């Protein structure tokens, strides 16, 4: 056991490390060192970052295109919908205008009829209920 190994058996806080913990820490250190050496000496591809950037750009381009198409289609659909709504509203307004005109005309007609009736009633010499008596009286006078 080297001096370094002996000192490792006592932790920094002065506590003694049990053999199992000491072994586990040693193995952990070895594995991290081996992993790091393997990762450090792995062949590096200089274009990796560029390619990743390209992939990101491509993905971003696709996403943007999809969004633009979706926005274009939904704008068209929305505009069409609005146009239809406007036309329906115009048709309804026209229909209501015609109905109102018809109602007005009918009301005018009724007023005219009523006025004509009132006129005919007012223009009589005697009320209609008294008419037979008036005729009898008129007959007497002629005799």
């Amino acid at each position: 056991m080297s001096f370094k190994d002996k000192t490792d058996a006592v932790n920094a806080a002065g506590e003694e490390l049990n053999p199992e913990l000491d072994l586990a820490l040693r193995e952990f250190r070895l594995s991290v060192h081996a992993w790091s050496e393997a990762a450090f000496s792995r062949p590096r591809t200089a274009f990796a970052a560029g390619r990743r950037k390209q992939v990101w750009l491509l993905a971003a381009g696709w996403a943007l295109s999809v969004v633009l198409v979706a926005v274009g289609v939904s704008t068209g659909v929305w505009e069409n919908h609005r146009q239809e709504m406007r036309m329906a509203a115009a048709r309804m307004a026209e229909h209501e205008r015609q109905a109102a005109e018809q109602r007005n005309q009918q009301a005018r007609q009724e007023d005219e009829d009523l006025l004509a009736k009132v006129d005919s009633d007012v223009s009589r010499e005697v009320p209609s209920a008294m008419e037979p008596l008036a005729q009898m009286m008129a007959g007497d006078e002629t005799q």
Partner: protein
Amino acid sequence: MAAGTALEAMTMATAQEIAAEEFSAVVTKHRPQIFRFLLSSTRDVDLAETLTQECFLKAHRNWGRFRGESSAMTWLMRIAINLQKDHWRNRRLQFWRKTQTNAVELDEASDWLPSGERSVEQQLMARERVAQVGQAVEELSERQRTVFLLRYVEELELSEIARATGLNEGTVKAHLSRALARVRAELGGKR
């Protein structure tokens, strides 16, 4: 006067050359260790490489200001720790970003355990122990993990850890003690 200026320019150029050579030697010597610390902290090879490059870039920019009060290793480690902290802080703010997919489980790191001259059973047990330590390390707080890795993977002395992390030695000891308790519990609990 002109000769003096030319001499000064030559001296400055020579000094710069020496500084560049010194820095190059520092990079060659310490790059694997800085990379290893960042790899064990982040568990992401690509991220560790990026942060290592950033670390040496920052070190290069500030090389002129390095007074040698601590070792170059401690100075570089301090830069690496700060970069790593900044990285995680930025990541936390970028909550909309997906978690890095390159990060590996520490169980996978146990695959790298050298087999030596042990039996298959011993190797499996060793892998199990490494995975347990890895699990415990993963559950440590950022500061405890940093202190633990600097001590038990990088084998730095307490004073060096204190300088690299900017903590005092007492705090470093306390963090180490807590981290070890966690590792001990992990190893004990799954035995």
